[in-house]
């Protein structure tokens, strides 16, 4: 697979301040603890395979006008995996750091906290709506996941250093239209999955 360029949902090493890195790891460890507790051992293979699939799918170029984008698939991760999305995303981010040099070692905690929060916000929305509203709910999940992630990236950059405010604001603004695309693709994906694997998108707890 040729080299792909990622969107700025991963914060690179060397940008975040020490206290923020420590706080990020604290949140990530709490999320990992909760996620691993809710992941049954016999469901690990499913979680791993879905995590691999989402990792690879997020590398595919999806056309947007004259250009193309990569989707984060965080909304779908939340819907399919629920709390297991946090350890799955931690693993995916670690592998992205090792294989693609996206993100970093120390910033892994912050990135996990951000992506995990985004996936969990999607899961919460999907769980509340119980999958009853189908397409609209799935769109909302995809949309809210990207908005949550972008807002947290913006906040992290701003809290790290005030001189990154303009960059942080640009990242948030750039992700707004992309959130719409993510919502639409997530919605169509969930509608298709409902036909193929209805038990995994029933609106109950994830895997």
């Amino acid at each position, binding site marked *: *697979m040729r*080299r792909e*360029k*990622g969107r*700025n949902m991963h914060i*690179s*090493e*060397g*940008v975040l*301040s*020490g206290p923020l890195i420590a706080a990020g790891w604290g949140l990530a460890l709490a999320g990992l603890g909760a996620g*691993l507790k809710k*992941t049954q051992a*016999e469901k*690990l*293979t*499913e*979680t*791993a*395979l*879905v995590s*691999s*699939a*989402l990792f*690879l*799918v997020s590398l*595919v170029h*999806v*056309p947007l006008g004259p250009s193309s984008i990569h989707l984060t*698939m965080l909304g*779908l991760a939340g819907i399919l995996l629920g709390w297991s999305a946090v*350890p*799955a995303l*931690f*693993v*995916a981010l*670690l*592998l992205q750091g*090792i*294989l*693609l*040099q996206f993100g*970093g*070692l*120390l910033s892994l905690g912050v990135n996990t906290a951000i992506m995990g929060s985004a996936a969990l916000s999607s899961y919460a929305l999907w769980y509340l709506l119980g999958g009853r509203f189908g397409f609209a709910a799935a769109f909302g999940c995809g949309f809210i996941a990207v908005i949550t992630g972008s807002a947290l990236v913006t906040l992290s950059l701003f809290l790290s250093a005030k*001189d*990154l405010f*303009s*960059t942080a604001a*640009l990242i948030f603004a750039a992700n707004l239209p992309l959130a719409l695309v993510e919502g*639409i*693709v*997530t*919605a*169509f*994906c969930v509608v*298709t*999955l409902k036909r*193929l694997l209805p038990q*995994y998108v029933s609106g109950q707890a994830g895997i």
Partner: protein
Amino acid sequence: MYLDRLEFKNDLLKTFDPRCRLASGAVFIFAVLYITNTILLACLTVSLILLLFRDIKALLPRLSALNLFCAMLFVTMPLGGEPLSAALLYTLRVNAAALLSMLFVVSMGIGNLIPALSKLRVPEKLVSLLMLTYRYLFVIHRQVFYSVLSMRLRRPRETVTMTWRSYAAAFASVLAGAFFRSRKVTLAARARGFDGAFPLTRTLKWKTRDSLACAGAALAAILLLVINAMLAGGM
């Protein structure tokens, strides 16, 4: 994806325990976060590239993604009233941290990282998840490639929404395939007596030289910070 290993001019680091490499890498990267002198960072970055990496042409594309972010800093920070020197400082810091990460962590490979994490008392579930995810990346990679390729060959070019719908259907088919495969793998594993634990055959032995290396890394990091403080103080 970069499946080929990074080549270094010296393989000395490979002789150390992976846990030592993780700890040393973390210490160096943490020190880099607190370096505020641009010249010191530039010297560090250039030294790392020239002294340690064998193939610079292979190295530079690996840094392209994070340098896109750095390029954005050069545009957005002046718009926010910040000097270009601040953008340069971040660029050098990001690149130095990435190079250190490649040197200490990326180069060790998954085969060394997994036993190191296991020995560091990382929960077994998480280590197993990492192992399985890495294992199936290469299996599902082919499925994604062919699924997207066949979709691109067949999809109607009518509207943008239909295009996104086609991509979504391709992604859903990959995910459904992943679910079905996982069921088969789980049943096959259970039939072979799998009890949820993956035994690791690789044993790691911590030696005195690893302790000395960690101490050396800590001292080197402190020295960098002292030099930074001296340069900042104008001495």
